[in-house]
């Protein structure tokens, strides 16, 4: 039974979001039906740590229970580890894949809980979308990873010279994981634009979207790449 946390949201809105999830091309190969065997939960790392159950999410979608779906869309999906251990489901469901789709819908619709879940994450989105590499060496900062011990500090203090003593020529970088050609990055920008990913960011973080759009539009203009 759903709680009363989201009674202020109209049923039509919950139904609309559910329909959006269901319309994803992958949905029908990710969900067949659930006989509650619990194999997904037994294999799930998040279920051991959180009050989280890939079985319940799958069953909720199978039952088309839009109230409970909306609650899970807000409260549960960001606990998933996306390890896909649950793919061993004997019904061939992919609970992790369903969660991927639900997360996409949550982002595209700029849900408040999604903004909260991704609040600390926007600098990484910026990094990956603008550079094509996700974690750069210069992100290893003591204040960002205080629980990783003194070695993080050693890396950040010696970063420039430690990158130079790496034999592969492509790794002498600090702001990128490796040297990425300009043209390569511009092609990536074109992909983000043509597939609507940049628009998705607009719902999540308008400021971030505007900065990235400016960078990407300038670059695309310069490179002459068509991104429509």
């Amino acid at each position, binding site marked *: 039974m759903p709680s009363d946390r989201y009674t202020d949201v109209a049923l039509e809105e919950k139904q609309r979001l559910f329909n959006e999830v269901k319309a994803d091309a992958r949905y029908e190969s990710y969900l067949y039906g659930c006989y509650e065997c619990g194999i997904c939960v037994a294999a799930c790392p998040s279920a*051991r740590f959180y009050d989280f159950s890939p079985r319940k999410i799958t069953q909720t979608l199978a039952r088309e229970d839009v109230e409970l779906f909306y609650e899970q869309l807000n409260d549960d999906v960001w606990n998933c580890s996306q390890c*896909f251990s649950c793919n061993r489901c004997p019904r061939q469901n992919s609970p992790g894949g369903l969660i991927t789709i639900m997360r*996409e819908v949550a982002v595209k619709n700029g849900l408040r809980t999604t903004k909260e879940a991704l609040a600390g994450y926007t600098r990484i989105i910026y990094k990956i979308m603008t550079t094509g590499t996700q974690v750069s060496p210069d992100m290893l900062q003591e204040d960002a990873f205080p629980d990783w011990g003194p070695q993080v500090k050693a890396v950040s203090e010696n970063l420039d010279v430690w990158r130079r003593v790496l*034999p*592969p020529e*492509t790794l002498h970088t600090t702001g990128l*994981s490796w040297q990425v050609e300009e043209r390569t990055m511009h092609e990536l920008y074109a992909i983000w634009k043509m597939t609507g990913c940049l628009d*998705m960011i607009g719902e999540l973080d308008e400021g971030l979207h505007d900065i990235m759009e400016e960078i990407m539009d300038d670059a695309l203009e310069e490179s002459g790449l068509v991104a429509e």
Partner: protein
Amino acid sequence: MDSLDVRVNGTKVETSRKFERDPETVRDEDLREAIWELGREGEWIVQPVPEPYYLAPTKYGRLKKIPLEHTWHHKSCGQCGHIPGYSTSIFWLNRVLGYDYFDPRDQTSCTAWNYYASATSNQAAQAAVAMRNFSAAYETGYFPLIHCGTSFGHYKEVRHELVHDAKLRRQVRNIIEKLGRPFVMPEEIVHYSEWMYAVREELATRRQLDVSGITATVHPACHYYKLQTGDAIYDPEIYGGQRTAAVTGVVQALGANVADYSTWYDCCGFGFRHILVQRDFTRSFATLRKIEVMKQEANPDVVLTHDTGCVTSLDKSQFAAQAHGRNVGVPVMSESQFAALALGAHPFRVTQLHWHSVDYRLLLEKMGIDVDKAWSEFQSDVDKVKQGEMEYLTWEHVL
């Protein structure tokens, strides 16, 4: 065959039963046939695995072609960014074996880490990123070799979607053509740890250090064998062919012991978003479910794995747990780094262990490496770079 008993210690099955595969019951379509068929229909160019290749057994008994050389190294953002000895060791091993390879700059990350963490992307974008990289590899004439377990798993997923969804295929093809690139699907999607498996005997013959006194536990990466399960290496000699042989096969070939533990199948706790913004989960899972269990049941000298995220979460999570007096403290690295060390690679110039958190000194000493000497050699490189005597450390310095 006397040494066999030692080599398979821990992965030898405790039963005389032997699984005989019945060809009539092989499940799962062979995607590769569909890939060639789409190639014949002009839907895409199929890039064949270059010769010479190794034929490795996979989960359902099919053989997978693993290229030995002419490989295009699809690097990992997390490896190159935070554990650069990982990628460096892969390259170093290629050089030691004399295999021709290409380290591209026209390569982006697969962007799947971000996708699995934040969902700020979509199916078409992910497929386009993959196909752009495949296209870039094809244009160099080299064959993609994927360094990251997540990239490997995600690309297998993308390949599955592109084969089965004509609409998606058209959409992505259109994007790739707008970028002015050919639309290419490689014949096989190959992970570097499969290449390691393919060359394990060659590695063994070039081994410099005796590692028979080393006990390792192996963490198999979820995205290596749980996404698109059929396409992963399973060797009848390892766990009776019932668990993936990636990593384990290489470590045993080098003569080290692989010990089993009861959370072998568990995830490392990386979580994609968790490792960055919700690390209480990652720390707890990595230490309580993995490292502590390994310590208690196998007391390994080292944890070996084959993925970016797994090395990161298993290594970095131990510091806080150690501060709380938990039973942790096992160095973590990739099997490529371990193999490089066994073949005589410099622990800092090549395997770059100073980027790792858990103390690795005991392990290195047990392998017969003079850690202080190695560190001072590395420091002298650092000094030379600082003083402008040397711009970069190069391959000539380490081979």
